[in-house]
């Protein structure tokens, strides 16, 4: 006889769906967004990043392959590194049409602006009705509009964030660092200079005694002093990752902020 209660054991090894490549601001792997909407979305997202430095990426995947959408979205967000490094101002809007699941994953830096409740409301009020009607492109476009609206709602914070991440020129901090390194290098290598140069350029007075620049230098042992080249303190410049035609994540991370939903 069949027992009434059946225990289903899920395989312990989680079926991890392979991660798609970040080919642009809209990665429509499931193919549910039409070309015109996609082009409009890409343009909108690009313009918004220029303005705010916030990176919003939309992706659709055919199947989660048994994985829950939350860990998958977090993995994908971190793999793509959305948002600027240190600022973590990225947002990933992910839709899995065949699993009927969607999620807005918010980077650490935007958790305070686009709260979990905002994400939930956008999902429930904007995306769910459109998706139920089969209008994926419309639902996603309106959801992106809502996200931008919320992010723009905190205008002062948005401007500050944009300024912080668009500074490509030399700032006061850079000058201070260069000055510090220069002074330090002068003091440090100055010791070497005075240990070596008098022997080379100075006039020899006796064993271990040299006169150079009107001063007498004494060297009380015959130890060899090795010549040492000058190394200038080089400061590595920041290169803007978003220049050029290609798009790549800025190196941001997410701690699981945002909200998920289904329809």
């Amino acid at each position, binding site marked *: 006889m069949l027992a009434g209660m*059946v225990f289903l054991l899920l395989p312990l090894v989680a079926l991890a769906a392979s991660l798609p490549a970040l080919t642009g601001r809209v990665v429509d792997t499931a193919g549910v967004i039409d070309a015109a909407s996609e082009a409009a979305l890409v343009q909108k997202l690009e313009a918004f990043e220029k303005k705010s430095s916030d990176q919003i990426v939309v992706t659709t995947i055919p199947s989660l392959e048994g994985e829950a959408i939350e860990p998958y979205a977090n993995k994908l967000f971190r793999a793509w590194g959305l948002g600027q490094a240190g600022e973590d101002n990225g947002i990933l809007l992910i839709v899995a049409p065949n699993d009927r699941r969607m999620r807005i994953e918010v980077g650490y830096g935007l958790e305070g602006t686009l709260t*979990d409740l905002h994400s939930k409301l956008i999902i429930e009020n904007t995306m769910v009705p459109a998706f139920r009607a089969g209008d994926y492109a419309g639902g996603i476009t309106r959801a992106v509009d809502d996200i931008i609206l919320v992010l723009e709602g905190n205008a002062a914070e948005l401007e500050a964030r944009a300024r912080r991440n668009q500074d490509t020129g030399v700032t006061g901090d850079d000058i201070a660092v260069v000055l510090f390194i220069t002074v330090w290098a002068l003091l440090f290598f100055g010791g070497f200079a005075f*240990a070596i140069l008098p022997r080379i350029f100075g006039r020899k007075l006796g064993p271990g005694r040299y006169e150079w620049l009107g001063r007498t*230098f004494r060297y009380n042992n015959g130890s060899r002093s090795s010549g040492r080249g000058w190394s200038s303190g080089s400061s590595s410049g920041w290169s803007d990752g978003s220049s050029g035609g290609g798009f790549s994540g800025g190196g941001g991370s997410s*701690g699981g902020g945002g909200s998920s939903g289904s329809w």
Partner: protein
Amino acid sequence: MTALRLIQPSTARLIRVFAALLLALPLLSACGYNTIPTAEEQAKAAWSEVLNQYQRRADLIPNLVETVKGYAAHEKEVLEGVVEARAKATQVTLPADALTNPEAFKAFQEGQAGLTSALSRLLAVVENYPDLKANQNFLALQAQLEGTENRIAVARRDYIEAVRVYNTALRTFPSVLWATLWFTGNKPFENFTASEGASEPPKVNFN
């Protein structure tokens, strides 16, 4: 000309020794001296994030219980279960060596697991109250609670990975040399055994 007087020829040698020491420092880190402390600090930071998110969940609960009470006061048992589980979970005081103390770590984990299951019972009961589900306050709390649960899951995953790296560093070459010669007080950290709720297979009832 004080600078010139400072660098007397007799001190030139001292400066050279000092410079040699400075140059040797990066070599020391290349030997893997930094591996263990770095991994340890990362694991500790990951643990702080776990505690932080559990604390946030505990902070959300009183508000949630009050809101549910307004609509489903007669679900006393479930509500009290949550309040009790929360009290139990927050009562667990973590000693300073919680990460290397299996008993303390287990007590903490059990307290939080109890709260997780009590909360899921409450949220299951809530499904029977459409008025409550439509309540804006409840919706906000639910969104925050879901977000916190997910952040807990992420923080736990990060902690598991950080501890794996740290414990591996303590036992593998070449960092094991530093562990035995220098960092003798460093003990492996405790890790979460399984993700909450994943140890129980889902039950399917065909009756």
